[in-house]
């Protein structure tokens, strides 16, 4: 179970924790990503052994307004692409990354697409096919269509 073996570490110990896991028999990086919690971002990595049967999750938190963390690329070269993707999708800066170019996108103009606060333009431009009443008559956030967050709307708050 992922929840049982998730080790939370301080941001300052992030790279050291990955090094210890690598040297302790978990040399493969399976995943490195971010979960947007609002005020904070969870940075999550999962490392495994050669058989893939043993694995460990590492987790740390960074502030959402200025997310910064040490790159794992020096410890685990495989982290390089994952970090480039997380950088462009979530706006996280990886200190010491050897090649911080965008991986998939040409540029995100300061609006990382996978952050919850970044409006998904197509959701605002297109009419929701499930509309039965005019949008102006919707009373609460429960009535927002799926995939639309209240803070994207004029006068909305998080």
């Amino acid at each position, binding site marked *: 179970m992922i929840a049982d073996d998730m080790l939370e570490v301080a941001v300052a110990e992030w790279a050291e924790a990955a090094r210890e896991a690598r040297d302790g028999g978990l040399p493969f990086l399976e995943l490195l990503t971010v979960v947007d919690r609002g005020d904070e971002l969870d940075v999550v990595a999962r490392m495994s052994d050669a058989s893939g049967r043993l694995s460990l999750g590492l987790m740390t938190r960074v502030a959402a307004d200025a997310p910064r963390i040490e790159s794992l690329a020096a410890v685990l070269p495989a982290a390089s692409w994952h970090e480039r993707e997380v950088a462009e999708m979530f706006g996280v800066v990886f200190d010491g990354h050897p090649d911080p170019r965008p991986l998939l996108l040409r540029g995100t103009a300061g609006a990382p697409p996978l952050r919850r606060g970044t409006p998904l333009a197509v959701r605002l431009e297109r009419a*929701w*096919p*499930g509309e*039965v009443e005019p949008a102006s008559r919707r009373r609460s956030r429960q009535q927002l*269509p*799926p*995939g639309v967050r209240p803070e994207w709307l004029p006068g909305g708050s998080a």
Partner: protein
Amino acid sequence: MTAPTPHHFIALIEDACTSCLICVQECPTWCISLDSHHEEVSEPGARRPRTVSVLDDFRIDYGLCMYCGICVDLCPFDALEWRPRVGYQAEGRDDLVHDIARLDGGTSDG
């Protein structure tokens, strides 16, 4: 619990659909849409006519669908079901929108 079925295509069982819009409203990618209208039916012996919803068209945009199965799970009338079917290549983007005529996949058995 049902046995896992292949994630191929979602078939619409037209006669079971009541146009209730639940699938349309719950689909996270907004890829289902439908048109319907109301009709009055008078039944012999009934005191007044009944209003029924008649489905005119039902579309799934397979260019957006992520095969999450939420629509299939939530339909209260079992009008959507997974059906193994291959050959969903399309000439273009618009061709990935399957309308009511294509949603039984020509393999409908019900």
